[in-house]
């Protein structure tokens, strides 16, 4: 299924873009993260938080077609 993935901060720079669409084999965040790590050589993923459709999620969260998954490095606002 098609998933939109949003990347921020150093992840965005490593991927060379802030948004990618991918065709996911499997249906969990964990599987998606494995694909991202392999295809885009993203670093420090274990420190990242995950949001699905703008709400925090975790590795076990099950995705559905059209979901927006954001990979969020540790935040540093304020």
């Amino acid at each position: 299924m098609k998933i939109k993935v949003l990347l921020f901060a150093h992840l965005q720079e490593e991927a060379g873009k802030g948004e990618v669409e991918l065709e996911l084999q499997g249906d969990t965040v964990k599987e998606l993260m494995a694909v991202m790590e392999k295809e885009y050589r993203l670093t420090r993923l274990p420190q990242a938080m995950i949001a699905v459709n703008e709400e925090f999620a975790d590795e076990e969260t099950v995705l559905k077609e059209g979901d927006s998954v954001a990979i969020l490095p540790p935040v540093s606002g304020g």
Partner: protein
Amino acid sequence: MNSCSITREPIKVEEIASRVTRPEAGAVALFIGTVRELTGDKRTLYLEYQAYEAMAVKKLEQIRTEIGERWPDAQVVIVHRIGRLEITDIAVAIAVSTPHRDSAYEANRYAIERIKEIVPIWKKEHWEDGEEWIGNQKGTQEYKTGKPEVTEIEN
């Protein structure tokens, strides 16, 4: 009133303060986070802030809600700026008004701690000899669950 926002424009302190000023309140606590030139012995030239905007606004509103539950008398406005910020520019402003000052200080402090925990905003420091996206400044915790933990604020 849209009370929490992300902006690319300079933040006006007077305006933020006036948005929480009201006859029922006797105290307004404001916190202003500004761009500091020196961190340790590193000299910052400027900062760049990036946000996952839609979610950042949601999380700022969540903080407002949390404050409303803990300090029902409080009114809160939070504005965070993104984009390129120069030294002394205001990155974030938090205004809390309450009838009495205790809760204004407490709720304000709560807001900035929560911002640093759950609001998807990142800063990149630019120095003369390099640049870096700054990670979690509250310690190098790993989010094993993928979610930030809800921690009690230590005063």
